[in-house]
């Protein structure tokens, strides 16, 4: 078998000796995961600060003079792009993907460790180029995170000169980095699993990351194509996207380009991107729920099939972002239908999570709180998605705060709750230390209730018709006074949630030294990463022998078994050979 050549090697694939080889130019997937995570969390904090500044302006429009309209648009743009791409995509795939795939599949490392290392450094370069745009003349681009032409490259939009070019170049570099990482994740899952780890025995975290990576590999080229063509429009004066127009009294040379073409390309990437972020979250949350409810995941096969179905369908729904774009109205029918169809596998997953909790031995640990919180926010965001998926409902709501509330609930808060839960869950394996549980709980409740205080009222604002993307609402007749009060309240809630991130960071950093020493398997989990001979896992992960897998990842509370969990690498014993689950 081909896999034996990689997976069964006794010696590690590479052998670092110096400090630099171990921690800087490291080819160890665990170190690369930490590098990815630190950079992603750092840019995420930058984007968080930007959102705080925007909220100050929106909540108290006449009180703060350090945010002018141009900066407001620049902050919106950078906040959106950083959160979606440079934080969530990088953290889920570069961070969790790198850490979990080899450990959960029972391999010593990724199959192309050198390319994996390059992937991180190229990602770092993308981040540096992106952040550099804050310091160039004109500042970063303020075109909105969707970067729609023609306005993105025309004077009058903030950052229309260097800002937008740096953004496009940075995206191009990011995609190169992602492709190098993605090749690794896919190939490792396919070819470097340990003996006995069949595809259908993989934990759902790996399934989610695996399918999300495939989506990314096929969808990011659309962004790459549009970035190249828009760069040329902006620098060389070509007319791929730029129509004939008059701008600030001038008539640029452009002629005949199609802004709609950009929107198609962008959303052909942009919609799968939602699932590039969501599928790893789905997978991870499944594992958190099963582990902390001490129960097998309900409907494992359905969960896998749903991940695959969502992945496939995510490529045929992109134009539901474009109902108001002026495309052929008949397209709307088609895309509304596919959009509603994708709700079916998604709903299956939600039912299965709830049924996993049903009659489980639920331990309300901090990771579990975040996982359950995710079910709430995700259902909430999913339901408003049904509203917006319908053309007739979307048209009046499209440019209002309803949309802001919807997408922050479904792809802002929900994946971030999973990120937090996952960090709390795997931190003991990563560092060998436990968190301060009390601070974790305070962090959870502030975040969970706080995000509701932020985003729930936004739906109300949207239904009132409060337009999004406005720097200040001013005195507008159709808006009641309550709008301004709500805006102020949202801002206060947002600042509280932002402050709770400080608690999280404090807890994470201080626990490195002061945290209680963690046992090898503090959550009594079944998956392989908790069965490593050392905690934290050493280079090569498994000591002299690779693990051998004998069962699926969800043997919790098996009747007759001495413990309420049986790790995947424990051989089948005839006394309790059949697992508990009969759902399929």
């Amino acid at each position, binding site marked *: 078998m081909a896999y034996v050549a990689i997976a069964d090697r006794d010696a590690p694939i590479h052998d670092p000796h110096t400090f630099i080889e171990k921690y800087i130019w490291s080819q160890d997937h665990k170190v690369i995961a930490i590098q990815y995570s630190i950079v992603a969390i750092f840019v995420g904090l930058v984007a968080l600060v930007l959102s705080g500044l925007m909220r100050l302006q929106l909540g108290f429009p006449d009180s703060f003079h350090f945010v002018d309209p141009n900066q407001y648009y620049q902050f919106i743009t950078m906040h959106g792009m950083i959160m979606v791409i440079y934080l969530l995509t990088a953290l889920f795939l570069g961070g969790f993907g790198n850490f979990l795939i080899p450990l959960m599949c029972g391999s010593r490392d990724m199959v192309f460790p050198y390319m994996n290392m390059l992937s991180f450094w190229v990602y770092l370069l993308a981040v540096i180029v992106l952040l550099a745009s804050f310091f160039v003349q004109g500042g970063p681009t303020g075109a909105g995170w969707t970067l729609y032409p023609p306005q993105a490259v025309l004077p009058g939009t903030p950052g229309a000169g260097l800002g937008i070019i740096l953004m496009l170049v940075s995206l191009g570099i990011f995609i190169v980095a992602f*492709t190098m990482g993605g090749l690794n994740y896919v190939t490792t899952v396919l070819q470097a699993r340990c003996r006995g780890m069949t595809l259908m025995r993989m934990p759902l975290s790996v399934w989610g990351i695996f399918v999300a990576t495939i989506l990314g590999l096929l969808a990011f080229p659309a962004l790459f*194509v549009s970035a190249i063509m828009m760069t040329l429009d902006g620098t060389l004066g070509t007319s791929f996207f730029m129509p004939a127009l008059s701008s600030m009294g001038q008539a640029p040379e452009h002629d*005949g380009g199609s802004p709609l073409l950009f929107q198609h390309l962008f959303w052909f990437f942009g919609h799968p991107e939602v699932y590039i972020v969501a599928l790893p979250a789905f997978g991870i949350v499944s594992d958190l729920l099963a582990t902390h409810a001490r129960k097998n995941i309900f409907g494992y096969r359905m969960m896998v099939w749903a991940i695959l179905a969502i992945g496939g369908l995510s490529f045929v729904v992109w134009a539901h972002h474009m109902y108001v774009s002026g495309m052929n109205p008949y397209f709307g029918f088609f895309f509304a239908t596919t959009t509603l169809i994708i709700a079916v596998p998604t709903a299956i997953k939600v039912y299965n999570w709830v049924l996993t909790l049903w009659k489980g031995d639920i331990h309300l640990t901090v990771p579990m709180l975040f996982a359950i919180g995710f079910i709430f926010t995700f259902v909430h965001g999913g339901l408003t998605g049904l509203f917006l998926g319908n053309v007739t409902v979307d048209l009046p709501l499209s440019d209002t705060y309803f949309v802001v509330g919807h997408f922050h609930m479904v792809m802002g808060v929900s994946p971030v709750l999973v990120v937090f839960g996952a960090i709390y869950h795997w931190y003991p394996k990563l560092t060998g230390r436990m968190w301060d549980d009390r601070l974790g709980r305070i962090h959870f409740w502030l975040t969970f209730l706080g995000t509701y205080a932020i985003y729930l009222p936004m739906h109300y604002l949207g239904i009132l018709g409060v337009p999004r993307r406005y720097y200040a609402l001013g005195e507008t007749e159709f808006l009641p006074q309550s709008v301004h009060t709500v805006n102020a309240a949202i801002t206060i809630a947002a600042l509280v949630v932002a402050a709770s991130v400080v608690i999280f960071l404090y807890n994470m950093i201080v626990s490195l030294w002061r945290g209680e020493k963690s046992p090898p398997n503090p959550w009594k989990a079944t998956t392989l990463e908790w069965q490593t001979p050392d905690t934290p896992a050493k280079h090569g992960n498994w000591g002299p022998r690779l693990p051998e897998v004998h069962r699926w990842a969800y043997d919790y509370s098996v009747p007759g078994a001495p413990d309420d969990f049986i790790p995947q690498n424990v051989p089948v014993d005839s006394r309790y050979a059949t697992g508990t*689950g009969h759902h399929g």
Partner: protein
Amino acid sequence: MSNTAIVVALLVGIAVWFAVASRLTAKPWENREQKGDVGVLHMSPQRIGLWVFMAVVTSLFALFLTAYSMRMHHSIGWCHLTIPNILWVNTAILLAASVALQLAANAVSGGRRDATRTALVAAGTLSIGFLAGQVLAWRAVGPSLYFVQGSPAIAFFYVLTIVHGLHLLGGLAVLGRASLRFAGGAELVDLRQSLSLCATYWHFLLLVWLAVFGVLLFL
């Protein structure tokens, strides 16, 4: 855009089929002892990596060509490119390079060092010749920025050929490294996989070029 959707749907379909074929219907909770057959594909990781990469590049060019077709149909007064004749020559050269590389891969498998050398030199020269030919084609199509700004067809021609050329350059870097190892007297057995992957990649780039050329000619 529908073209792209079809291509991607096809790729996803293949992925799903392949997953289903490898028993996505297994009932893992039954805990039957399963044989150690976890390798889904009987391929080296390098070969799988290359295939995944080629899927990414396919998606990239499918999207470029879809954009080309949509841009053409969206605009009034689209001016078609006059295909320079040298592109036919270039196509023949790339075809020859692809064949030469396959011969090199075969020669390495057969342990024939001299034949390998000849085929490698031929493949490298032909590939570089193809790139040089593409540069000549740019000169024939519209040699200055003025033409690129004025005609989206010419702008697309530049973008498509440059992106394709860059992929070939990437391949040449890998081929160059393998050739250096060959020149340094490496065992032929150690070069087998490398040259075989290069040959696959060259065939793939030939197909991509044929698709690009076909779209430029017939759309």
